[in-house]
């Protein structure tokens, strides 16, 4: 193919997920030629998620709530602590969460949502190349003058652009190689990953609505902590989709490896708990999936820009790993900010690292890094206080069930005994310290 046959690109985005597609959307809307390379047969083919946080999406596409393939809004949330057979739950919700904009929290099937989002980026003018793998970036110059100048597609051609936005997700081989090649610094601490394992369980729509007490247009997100997760740094979840449930857990890989449990044993143990079993009775497994989540938080985030390069989304480690567990909206915001930075840099004709440092500044000045900074100690707290997710909830659940035990003894005796059982085996000083630390989780 002759050289005048090429299509000149202003930017190349590696990865067609929320971060990459947002970057492409913003660039395309500004009239720039942008190409998105996605290794899946379609965008979303490799992606696993459950909740879509759409506050950034709402800014970019106010109509998304009506147009995107969203399964159900999260009208109510429930946090459940599971003991051996006991449970304590806290449930909350608001009428407003069942009405537009639904608190910008929806249960989605990512494979379907991402495909829709890709279509939006494409309609805005982005060039989507699906089913192609980027093995490495192209570079020019060496040492100090080395910069990224494009990508090489496996079994195909090289494509050049002054800016490459890396949004290749949690398992980010391209970003890793670019970090190495360009000498980008890693974070202050090692990036930690959790493994998320999930089952899509099919149930009739009516059964889901009856079982979770939902109106047809409502949905629910349930988080589970405690015994089934056997001391792992992790938790389980059930989200209601239209005609299926997302059921799964996420646990720190290193804690899972230490436990000697297999992911399947954990998910089966979770499903076997009486409080969970009754919610999924009769459901048919439709899909089994696994994905990683970067959980290192703020301190694990390294350099996110280099000469000709910016890194966004999960590849950048932008996940708020706290009770909020937000990732999609951070990914979209970082994609948008990378694109805005790219637009300025292209206009100035300067895509050097110094120019692209504006991307980091944008992130730091925004809610993205503000949230991540606020929850920077979550990982430490959970790793340093393993009882938080295990012993204490067990104790609390036991206390409540003992407290409400009906018997022919006097209430004062029952209560005294309940408290005695509660304090037995509870390391009080450590518990006080752990609970004080736990304030950082919320």
């Amino acid at each position: 193919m002759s050289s005048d046959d090429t299509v000149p690109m202003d930017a190349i985005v590696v990865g067609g997920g929320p971060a990459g597609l947002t970057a492409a959307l913003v660039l395309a809307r500004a009239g720039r030629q942008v190409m998105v390379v996605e290794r899946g047969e379609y965008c979303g083919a490799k992606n696993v998620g459950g909740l879509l946080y759409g506050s950034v999406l709402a800014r970019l596409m106010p109509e998304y709530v009506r147009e995107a393939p969203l399964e159900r809004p999260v009208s109510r949330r429930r946090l459940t602590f599971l003991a051996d057979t006991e449970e304590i739950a806290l449930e909350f919700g608001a009428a407003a969460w069942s009405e537009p904009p639904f608190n910008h929290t929806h249960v989605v099937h990512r494979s379907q949502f991402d495909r829709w989002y890709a279509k939006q980026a494409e309609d805005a003018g982005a060039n989507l190349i699906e089913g192609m793998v980027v093995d490495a970036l192209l570079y020019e110059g060496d040492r100090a003058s080395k910069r990224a100048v494009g990508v090489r597609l496996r079994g195909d051609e090289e494509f050049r652009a002054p800016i490459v936005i890396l949004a290749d997700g949690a398992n980010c081989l391209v970003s890793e190689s670019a970090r190495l090649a360009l000498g980008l610094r890693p974070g202050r601490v090692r990036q930690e990953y959790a493994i998320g394992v999930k089952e899509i369980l099919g149930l009739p729509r009516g059964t889901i609505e009856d079982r979770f007490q939902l109106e047809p247009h409502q949905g629910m997100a349930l988080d589970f902590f405690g015994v089934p997760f056997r001391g792992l740094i992790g938790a389980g979840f059930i989200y209601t989709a239209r005609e299926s449930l997302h059921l799964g857990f996420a646990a720190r890989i290193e804690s899972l490896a230490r436990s000697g449990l297999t992911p399947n044993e954990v998910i089966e143990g979770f499903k076997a708990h009486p409080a969970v079993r009754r919610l999924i009775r009769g459901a048919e497994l439709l899909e089994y999936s696994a994905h990683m989540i970067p959980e290192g938080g703020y301190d694990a985030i390294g350099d996110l820009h280099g000469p000709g390069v910016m890194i966004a989304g999960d590849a950048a480690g932008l996940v708020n790993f706290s009770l909020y567990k937000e990732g999609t909206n951070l990914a979209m915001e970082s994609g948008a900010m990378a694109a805005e930075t790219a637009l300025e840099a292209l206009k100035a004709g300067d895509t050097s690292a110094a120019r692209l440092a504006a991307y980091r500044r944008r992130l730091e000045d925004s809610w993205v890094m503000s949230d991540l900074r606020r929850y920077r100690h979550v990982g430490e707290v959970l790793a340093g206080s393993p009882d938080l997710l295990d012993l204490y909830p067990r104790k609390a659940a036991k206390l409540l069930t003992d407290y409400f035990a009906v018997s022919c003894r006097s209430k004062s005796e029952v209560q005294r005994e309940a408290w005695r059982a509660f304090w037995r085996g509870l390391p009080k000083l450590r518990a006080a310290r752990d609970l004080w630390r736990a304030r950082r989780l919320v």
Partner: protein
Amino acid sequence: MALTIAVVAREVWDTRDLSGTVLDENGRLRPGALPTRYEPEDLNALEAALRLKDAQGATVTVLSPGEVRQVDVAREALYRGADGAVRIAADPDELDDAALGALLAAAIRKLGSVNLVLVGTAVPDTAGSLLARHLAQALGWPAILWVDAIEETAADRVIARRAIEMGYESVEAPLPALLAIGVALLEDDPRAPRPAKAMLKLKLKKAEVPVWTPAELGIPDPAARCVTRRRRREPVPPRVIETRTVDPENEAELRAMLDSVRKGA
């Protein structure tokens, strides 16, 4: 005479790994239950055409019956190097191969100057592998079926190679002719179809693909050309396999298992 090749490209149901029920109780396809794909044998046919084009120059036009369901096969063919593509407005799921053959034959005549037609053999979603025969008959052209490879083309003839029980045979036909490509190629087969090219995707994403209606092709009611009719579809009830685990150390359990197997329980 340069080759002018027409290749059939069908979008067919992808039935490789079904999950859940595909047909509802009334025998209707549940929307979204089945993905689709580029008919793999048609893809092999396209590859054969593109190789002729690479080797000796040829014009390759793809004819794709039906609206795009999930995979835009006409465009996929362009991304691999086809020179042109035409969509034929029809519902392949509602037509049999005789009617589809009539429509395609009319389209090939409308293209004009076509002297070689390539079509894949396997047809999982319609009456069964008859399209090539009906199409050749409608064109009034000679056909070679189950073609493995095209050995030679000249101004007035084509020689194709195919596997037979004893080995291989080469078959010659005068042009214009139709070849039905009948090999399920392995990934590593040197004849395996090429993947789409990123550059062609970039350039042809928005290329117009003309749509020819049956009326334009002189067959206003293609259903009337059907020689067979589908009366109904019914789902096969899913087979439930109960597995039991028997303790190999427990003789009574083993005996009970053998008994139940013998009784066919």
